[in-house]
Each structure stands twice: as C-alpha cells, then as structure tokens.
C-alpha cells in the first residue's frame, strides 16, 4: 500500500454533485463530491478522447464527458456507454481535518 497522499482542496471547494480538476506532477485528475458528500477521484481525462472530465456533468454517481457524452461511474471508473468503452482508473480519497486527500500512487481500479 503506497503512501503518496496529497491535499486536493478543502471539502467545500467542491459543490455537492460536482467535480473539479486537480493537477499534480504532470498528471491530471477529476475529484468528485457526490450528492451525499462522499468523495472520489479518477483520471482526469476521458478514455475515449483526452477531454477533461472536470468540464463535464455529474448526475448521481455518473460523470459525463463534455465532448461526446460518454459516461462513467466515478465510484469505480466503469465506462457506462459509448463512446466511452475503456474504464477510468480510480484513486483512493479520504477526508482529513476538512481537507480532501488523494492517493496519487494508490492501486486504483483500472
């Protein structure tokens, strides 16, 4: 188990049922807050085309790519409909002292 936790933001920097972009060491992530204030993280770019998912729409536990409307379940990265066919990698997220922390080296689900 790795130990590369980085601070993403304050918990309230992400609205409920929304997503933000987080860049760290030349890699980009999408960090989500669900409607019941759980936090999740995936790779930041859609696996279909390299479009930032943080510009997309969050509906329930789904992130929709803003370019071609491909959808993923951001809890496990699963691609839900074409043109998204390849799952997103996910990363462990935790909340500590009001901060959202992301494990950049964690063994996320591909």
């Amino acid at each position: 188990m790795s130990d590369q936790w980085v601070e993403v933001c304050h918990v309230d920097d992400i609205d409920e049922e929304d997503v933000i972009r987080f860049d760290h060491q030349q890699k980009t992530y999408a960090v989500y807050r669900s409607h019941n204030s759980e936090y999740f993280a995936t790779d930041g770019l859609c696996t279909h085309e390299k479009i930032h998912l943080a510009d997309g729409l969050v509906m329930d536990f789904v992130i929709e790519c803003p370019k071609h409307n491909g959808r993923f379940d951001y809890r496990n990265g699963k691609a839900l409909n074409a043109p998204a066919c390849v799952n997103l990698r996910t990363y462990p997220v935790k909340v500590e002292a009001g901060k959202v922390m992301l494990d950049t080296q964690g063994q996320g689900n591909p």
Partner: protein
Amino acid sequence: MSQIPHDPERGKDYSLTGERARHAEDAGLVSAVWYQCPVPRKRMKELMQRSDGRALRDTALWLGAMVLSGWGGYVFWGSAACVPFFLLYGLLYGTAANSRWHEAGHGTAFKTRWMNDVVYQLACFMVMYEPQVWRWSHARHHTDTIIVGRDPEIVEPRPPRLHLMALKFLSFPHVFNAFKSLFQHASGQMSEEEKIFVPASEWPKVYRTARIWLVLQGLVIGTALFLNSWLPLMYVLLPTIYGGWLSYVFGLTQHVGLAEDELDHRTNCRTIYMNPVFRFFYSDMNYHLEHHMFPMVPYHALEKLHEEIKDDCPPPYNSLIEAYREIIPTLWKQRKDPSFYIKRPIKAPSPDVSDTAERQESAFS
C-alpha cells in the same frame, strides 16, 4: 452524414483513408484543442442540467402529431385530401426524427438514459441512420468538425456537385446508400472507412441491427405487395424519402460554405434564428455553433447558452433565407473555385482562455 469516397476529380481527398487524413494529423488538427467561449462554471452547470419534462412533452407532441396525421392520411387515402396529411406525416417522420436521433444520440434530450436510447433507436430507424455507425461517426464529427480527411459528416465537399444536391432533397442518395450499407452489414462486413471510426467491439451490434432492419423493411414491403397497396409504405420507408427535404434544408446551413480545417467552431458553424415551428422540427439545432462548442448542453437550453456567448461569436443569421442568401452564391462560386469560403468575423480569442494543447485550460471561468 456522408461517408465520402475518394473522388479523383476533386482537388482534395475527403475520404478518411486518403492523403488528407495524414495531412490533418501532421498539421495538428486531429483531436485538437478547440476554442471555447468563456462561460462561468456555475452558469455552465445550470445550462447542462438535464430533465425529462421538456423532452417528454416534445416527444409526445411529435409522436402524437404523427399518429393524427397518419390517421388522417388513412381516412382520406385514395383522394387528394390525404396529401396534406401525408406531407405533414412525412415531415414528422423524415425531418423531425432526424433531429431527435441527433439529440437522443448525444444523450441530452432526456435525463433518463433509457428514454434517450428508445427515442434514438426509433428515430434512427425512421431516418435510416444505423444507430451504432452513426453514434461513432457523430463522435468523430464532434472531435474533428469539418477537418478534411477526419470528419465523415462533411455534407458537401468542395467543389459541390449541384445535380447531386438536387437529388439529396428527396433523400434518394441517402436511402440508396443506406440500403447498400445495410446489406453489407447484414452480410457481416464493415466498410474500410467505418473500420476507422467504429471500434471492432461494436461490429457485431452493427450486423445484428442491419439484419433486424432488413427484416422489418422487408415486412413492410411484403405487406404492401400482399395488399397490393402503397399505403404501408406511406408510413414506413417512403416518408424517409418524401419527408426528409426540410432536414436537408436545415442541415445544409450547419457548415456548408464555411471554413474547413480550422479549430474554431465560430468559423465553421452557423447559428440561425428560426421560428418556433422550425425549431420544433429541428430540436433547436439552429443554435448549431453553440451545440458544437458545448455539446453537453441540451437542446432546450441552447437559446440561453447563445445569450451567454453571443458577444464572443459572429453575428447569427436572422433567418433561413438570410443564410441561404449566403450559401447559394458560395456554392455556385465553389464550383469553379473550391478554395473560396465565407470567413465569419470573429474576435481574437479571449485572454481568459488558453487553447494550447499543453494546458488545455477549461473555458469555464
């Protein structure tokens, strides 16, 4: 859409398998970063929101009108009185269905996914756009809009073939090509161009759909022959032909005559103000620039999006007629000078937005 075979008489090769495809890649035009007008994130989230209500209402109106006009056509069949009913039915089937496959294919018509899927499959059948092929073709169209050698949906390559355009008003080339494609797919084969933008994992679905469609079309044709009547065909198959002309009129205005190979939708898309009836048939795709720039905004929010970004865009056209006053002379000129196109007036990119490939800043400020 047109999958564009290579035409050696054209200066440029518009096919996806030719030299221009390689040129587009070398020029950095493939899957590139496109200009987006800045919109506050909070506002964009509002505009992106989905709901079922509006689409349920519009779908009920659309299908209800088809039932009523179809019923009128049946009641008056055999007399001239059936003509206006079938004209309306045809427009609802061959034109309104076109914009419905498009919106439902984007997944933006309804909030509920399966509703989009149902309308998508139904509308695809009506306009004879094979659902899997067109979903992937359209994704490519949005990625590389009017990039020659990449976009399979360039409606009128240059120079235009005006005699073919005349045939397209009655959808003859489309229906002919659709059947050709269906038979090819039903036999378990994809075209070389389709193999480029449709993943192999989708091919079995393409084959299955083609076989189902051919059976359904065959049943309709068989019923017509059995009854010795054109009437069944007036409801299925023929309205794709006699009802699609308005869709072609709308569709030509989207990109024809504008720039090719430019990474800014303000230079290759038109927005046209239209009356509510046209907007109903067209599902608000008259806001075509807005749709291409922000495809996640549902049709019913495009007018509001237009208000947000119009100061950063070329002036919209005030009517279809105004758009065609530009398109027709442009097409005529392009017969002899294919390099000619309309340069839409745009401001320099907003300093708030970086469009470099490296950073790919979000346009949501």
